[in-house]
């Protein structure tokens, strides 16, 4: 590797340094070089030794924690596709390995373009900002670039993903100063942007990969509509529990229904790509908590908040939605994905330990509350976390102020 480094230093670098043809692209070069080689820079003040971890390793750990959700999401796209097609005899009861390759292929064809667009567009924006401002390229987007595709509906047009990514990176992050400075979670901002700009595509109605052509006669079948679980549930709000339509919908959530607790936990239901499987997300959570990268306090309190709100609704039982058991409630939609990968974003969450408990709990609580109270926002998690992102500095302020007051009283 020494040879490679020497080659870069002697043959490549001169083009990018002062006087070279490409000197304006120095930050891009620098970003790529530091990607390949951690610089040989040594400590020059304070501690002489440093922990092995850096922001790159932190970020790649999060990306690895996302891999289970990504793989499951890929499979599930194919699974939902074949289910909706009712082709090849695929049924819900099939073992996971049935038509595995076919499902993965369908999924991969859907998800890879999303990932490529998200990373490509996001990194391009980052590079432009870094070059124009002369600061180094920071690693924040390594994670955001993976999160964005995972919280998108399968059929989202690629240009929308690109637009949302540009919006999120610029408005949510770069205008505040880049990685580490943002107030709102970048990936959620991308989603919120689409949610309000293109509600039709994000409404929670068409989440199954559209059927390109039916085999018989090559007729174009325009999108099989498969509502998400939350979309269905939203229809029950305002209806009497005893209403027959409501009963039909709630039947989907009873044991054996399409959205029963088991399916919701395993994740074989329609939904955003990465959000459906509690098991895959749980594996990610284990990686994050184990390595100490994700904050267990936020994850725990977020789950607690959701369960408490679900339980309170359950006690009130004013409509069918409220009647859903708390565990089932948090297993649906993006709740778990939000708890593990969104709320824990250290930049936008609270930074004090006490603050983390409050922040997580309130975010979890609000997620369920928004979802049930306002059927227009089936995905309350996004709104709740973004809202708590904004509130986080305030929570920290009061926690720190309490510490200050106790010190002042000590005299």
């Amino acid at each position, binding site marked *: *590797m020494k040879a*490679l*480094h020497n080659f870069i230093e002697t043959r490549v670098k001169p083009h990018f340094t002062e006087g070279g043809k490409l000197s304006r692209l120095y930050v891009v070069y620098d970003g790529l070089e*530091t*990607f*390949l*080689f*951690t*610089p*040989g*820079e*040594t*400590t020059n*003040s*304070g*501690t*002489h*030794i*440093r*922990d*092995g*971890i*850096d*922001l*790159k*390793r*932190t970020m*790649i*750990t999060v990306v690895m924690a996302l891999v289970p959700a990504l793989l499951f999401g890929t499979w599930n796209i194919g699974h939902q596709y074949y289910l909706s097609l009712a082709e090849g005899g695929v049924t819900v009861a099939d073992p996971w390995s049935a038509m595995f390759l076919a499902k993965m292929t369908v999924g991969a064809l859907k998800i890879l373009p999303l990932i490529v667009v998200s990373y490509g567009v996001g990194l391009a924006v980052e590079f432009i900002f870094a070059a124009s401002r002369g600061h*180094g390229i*920071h*690693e*924040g987007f390594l994670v955001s670039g993976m999160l964005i595709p995972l919280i998108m509906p399968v059929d989202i047009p690629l240009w929308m993903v690109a637009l949302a990514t540009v919006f999120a990176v610029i408005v949510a992050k770069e205008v505040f*100063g*880049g*990685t*580490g*400075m943002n107030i709102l979670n970048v990936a959620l901002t991308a989603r919120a942007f689409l949610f309000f700009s293109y509600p039709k595509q994000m409404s929670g109605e068409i989440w199954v990969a559209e059927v390109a052509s039916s085999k018989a006669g090559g007729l174009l079948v325009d999108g099989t509509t498969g509502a998400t679980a939350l979309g269905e549930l939203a229809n029950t709000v305002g209806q009497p529990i005893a209403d027959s339509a409501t009963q039909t919908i709630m039947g989907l959530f009873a044991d054996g229904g399409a959205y029963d607790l088991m399916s919701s936990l395993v994740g074989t239901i329609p939904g955003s790509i990465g959000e459906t499987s509690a098991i895959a997300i749980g594996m990610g959570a284990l990686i994050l908590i*184990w*390595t*100490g*990268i994700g*904050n267990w306090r936020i994850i725990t309190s977020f789950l607690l908040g959701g369960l408490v709100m679900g339980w309170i609704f359950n006690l009130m039982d004013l409509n069918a939605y409220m009647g859903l058991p708390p565990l089932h409630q948090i297993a649906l939609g993006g709740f778990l994905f939000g708890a593990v990968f969104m709320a824990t974003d*250290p*930049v936008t*969450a*609270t*930074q*004090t*330990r006490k603050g*983390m408990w409050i922040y997580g709990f309130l975010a979890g609580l609000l997620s369920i509350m928004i979802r049930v109270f306002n059927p227009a926002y089936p995905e309350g998690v996004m709104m709740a976390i973004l809202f708590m992102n904004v509130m986080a500095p305030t929570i920290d302020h009061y926690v*720190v102020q309490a*510490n*200050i007051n*106790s*010190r*002042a009283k*000590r*005299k």
Partner: protein
Amino acid sequence: MAHTIRIRKGLDIRLKGAASGAISTIALGERIAVHPSDYAGLTPKMFVNAGDVVQCGDVLFYDKNHPEVKYVSPVAGTVQEPVRGAKRRILSVEVIVATGADAAGGNRSIPQLDGSASAEAVRAAMLEGGLWPMLRQRPFDVVPEPDCIVRDIFVSGFDSAPLAPSAAQQLEGRLDAFQKGIDFLRVCAPKDRNVQLGVSAGDDTFNDVQGVDLTVFNGPHPAGNVGVHIHHVAPVNAGETVWTIAMQDVANLGDSLSSGTYVNRRVVALTGSRAQTALLSCTAGTLIGDLTAGRVESVGTRVISGNALTGVQRDGKDALGAFHHQITCIPEGEDPQFFLTKGWMGPGFDKFSASRTFPTWLMPKSASFDLNTNLNGEERAFVMSGQYEAVFPFDIYPVHLVKSIIVGDLDRMEQLGIYEVAPEDFALCEYVCTSKIATQKTVREGLDTMRTELG
């Protein structure tokens, strides 16, 4: 039974190269040096000129702002022209050690005291005898002002920093002197107050020491930091001053005041993977070169006076730091690390980390690591939360405090507890920092700003 305090937050960095065995005495070399920069916030004013002959205990320079605080020569010899840096700042004052007949009888007398001395007498003798700069105070982690009112005197009975010598090693054969030093210090403390001594759990070195309030501390580094002891026993509030003094200096104080001659000896642990480890006994001011001669690999080694977390890089011509009892020799890490093998995506079997993103956390507690000086990354904005808190056993919000220092908000610094901390307390924060932020430097700047502003 002494009160036990359990410290849960912290990190023991398991470096390779601990020193053990018998203590060998290093004879005085050709010259010694005193570095004013060892004393934070000191503006030195030379008292002697180049070519002057001094005795052991004679004043070399004094504090420009407090002329009573004198810094003395630990040996008899001839003063050299001070080594100056930018803006003619004095970097070091060197003394060529007298040999033969000149060396004998080269001790200046300082006041000799017995157990009945008053607080005024002890303070005056410490100032007159050049012993005062062995003290440091909280707030600000500087040498105390001569007329300061002291609330408590804290001595840490162990150093929990990586590879630091144990209390038994540091005080071998000097417990009597330590006791005498404690007796003198106790006189200076307010009435009915003992000297506060924090000891390590399971260490019986100090069992027979009288006149101290013993507190046992149990836990990972920084459990041995005196700042942690103060915080958990009796925290410093605004307007209060607490003295701290290293255990070997307590013994030096005891020996000096009871004998009437200036004594400043030190047991030093030569540690680290790049050194043939040893325990050495020397006079303060001994050059690093004399201590490491023939024991350290010369190429690609960083020689640190002090421990790897808080020490300063010194070369052979420089002296051991005034408050150091350890030399750490570790490899420099100047090689770029390819991302798949050694760098950020590599397995990292040789990287010790507070996070568990490296497999090293699975290794047995006995495994030690040969860490180098590579930054292991690039400086970034604060991203991770809770990292500092996990290694910072104070009821203080370290990140908020550091940020208040960076923006220079004095009120906020005071509110957030800057009086209680010293840069060394932030050493582990700096070590674990994902964003590679120079925390200790920031805290030192904050303390200096605060001290200047408060006059």
